[in-house]
């Protein structure tokens, strides 16, 4: 018996609906159809009146969620693809994220963003928008890389009294499997050492954790021990765990699937450089997607985003610096 990343997301939602009468799900095709990715499969049947189809109106979906949160509900909003959340951008970054600060009324909404590239998805079904949401005050941004985290962090997201942008990677939906769901988890805001090593630290999150781990396997055959830090949530960002790892290795490579300008990798490097310059034995490096829209064709897509091979190449170069 094994459970996929996607099934963990469905199970977490079922768990939240079962445990808390304030929870409901609202999104496009989430009802009888079970969602574009089937993340809400059978939930409408199991929880009548609490898994509701919305019109194709991302702005109004989030606005409605904020209104229900004011009334004490805990909505989970499914964006069909993270890319479409840009239509709801105003409501997320101006309405939801400012509500508590302006009025002292919490805004416990969870916005699920199926994000990131998969082969053949192209420019408008592949985007990584975590950094742009992390830029705004008042939002928590989660980027689980494992089945266990997909489950436990989604439960945390629903329980948190603030708006959470839950970035679930579509590339991990079906491939990633675990034996069982976890009964405990690291707290939100705490990074995880996904692999220990002493020669180089790779800091990454979400699907890129797995590319980094594959790169670390490859480098191990060459005699290098690479440490991989999975950030888990990019906001809050666990700088302490990152710095502690760099203190062990002296070398830092940040890997992100998002576009290169600004973003999570730049933020991590800025923090390490500013706070722990003396720990570095080499200039910190980062590897991101190329600065173009995400291409459709698999040949182009494989070259557009970081992969185990390009991560390994960047790591080698940094180790030899």
């Amino acid at each position: 018996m094994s459970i996929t990343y996607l099934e963990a997301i469905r199970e977490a939602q079922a768990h939240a609906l079962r445990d808390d009468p304030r929870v409901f799900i609202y999104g496009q095709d989430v009802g009888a159809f079970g969602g574009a990715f089937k993340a809400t499969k059978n939930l409408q049947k199991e929880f009548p009146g609490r898994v509701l189809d919305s019109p194709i109106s991302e702005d109004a979906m989030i606005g409605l969620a904020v209104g229900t949160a004011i009334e004490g509900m805990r909505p989970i909003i499914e964006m069909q693809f993270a890319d479409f959340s840009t239509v709801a951008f105003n409501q997320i970054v101006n309405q939801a994220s400012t509500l508590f600060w302006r009025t002292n009324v919490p805004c416990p909404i969870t916005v699920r963003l199926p994000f990131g590239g998969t082969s053949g998805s192209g420019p408008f079904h592949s985007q990584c928008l975590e950094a742009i949401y992390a830029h705004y005050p008042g939002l928590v941004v989660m980027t689980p890389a494992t089945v266990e985290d997909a489950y436990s962090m989604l439960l945390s997201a629903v329980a948190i009294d603030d708006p959470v942008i839950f970035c679930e990677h579509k590339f991990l939906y079906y491939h990633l499997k675990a034996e069982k769901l976890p009964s405990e988890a690291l707290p939100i805001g705490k990074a995880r050492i996904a692999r220990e090593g002493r020669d180089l630290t790779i800091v990454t999150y979400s699907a890129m954790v797995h590319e980094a781990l594959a790169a670390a396997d490859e480098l191990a055959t060459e005699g290098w021990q690479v440490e991989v830090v999975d950030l888990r949530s990019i906001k809050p960002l666990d700088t302490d765990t990152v710095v502690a790892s760099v203190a062990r290795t002296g070398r830092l490579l940040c890997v992100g699937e998002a576009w290169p300008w600004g973003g999570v990798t730049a933020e991590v490097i800025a923090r390490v450089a500013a706070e722990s310059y003396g720990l570095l034995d080499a200039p910190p490096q980062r590897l991101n997607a190329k600065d173009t829209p995400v291409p459709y064709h698999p040949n182009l897509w494989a070259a557009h985003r970081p992969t185990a091979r390009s991560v390994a190449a960047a790591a080698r170069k940094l180790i030899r610096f």
Partner: protein
Amino acid sequence: MLHTVSGSRTVVETQLAAYRYMLRARLLDEKFAALYRAGKIHGGVFLGRGQEALSAAIGISLKKSDVFAPLIRDAAGRLAFGEPIIDAVRTYLGSALGPMRGRDGNVHRGRPQEGYLPMISHLGAMVSVVNGILFARRMKGITGIVGAACLGEGATSTGAFHESLNQAAVEKLPLVLIVANNQFAYSTPTSSQFACADLANKATGYGVEAHALDGTDFSDCLETVGSAVARARAGHGPQLVVASLLRLCGHGEHDDAGYILPEQKNSPMGRDCLKVAEDWLQKNKLADPAQFAVWRSEAIREIEEAVAQAQREPAPDPYEEKWSALSSEHLNELRES
């Protein structure tokens, strides 16, 4: 705290109460304008001059348990819904004791948990939040409530207007969407804003009921808004109310409104609704100039007392400020950078 006047009034009592909210709003706005000119207010001042009849009619048609999302020209509606004058004054003067605690100012004030929503600046964005409150209450089995959201004609051009009105229609929510067509969105005339003959026609496309009214006419405002609110309350779904009027001031007090044409000012649309209301009350022998003068001086005293009080109150202190945008303080990053 909200709703100082009870919901079960006679028609005459409603008319008199509405007039008094209009008068208090006009005088409160004038005080804010004077404070602005004296340099006592940070940021903008936005008046509801010419829109008080419509606004008062909205506030007075709602019950305390209803939902109200006013816009920038709704001082009268806010008062009628039960906002104390001191909340408005504290927000304009930035008192730390006001509902927004100096974090937001002027018209951006409210008390969400009392069904009174503080607007963000992005037009049309509050409507779906009202939908959400109505949606949640329906899930909780609460019935018989109404949510009123105010917009100008400019906001009907936004995607948020379309999405939220359509959403309310699909969900058959008791939403009353009031559009004050005051002829200008900042300086943009209606000819550059929409091409339909009448904004009320838009209701057909959304499958909702429409009401058109003369926003300068006090009794039309009370009657038509009251009936739209009653229709929504009775389960007839969203109601679109379109009021024709003229903004009798600039967009804000920084704006001399040179773009408002003299022929518009001199047209029936340019009538001052406060004067129209006074004439109507006198004609119907419900009040006389002596009574108006008493009400005026009572309102001025109340406003001056509120201003004096707020001016004595502490301003927000940056060293006392929590600087936390999250309610979950443990999730803040404790870094200065």
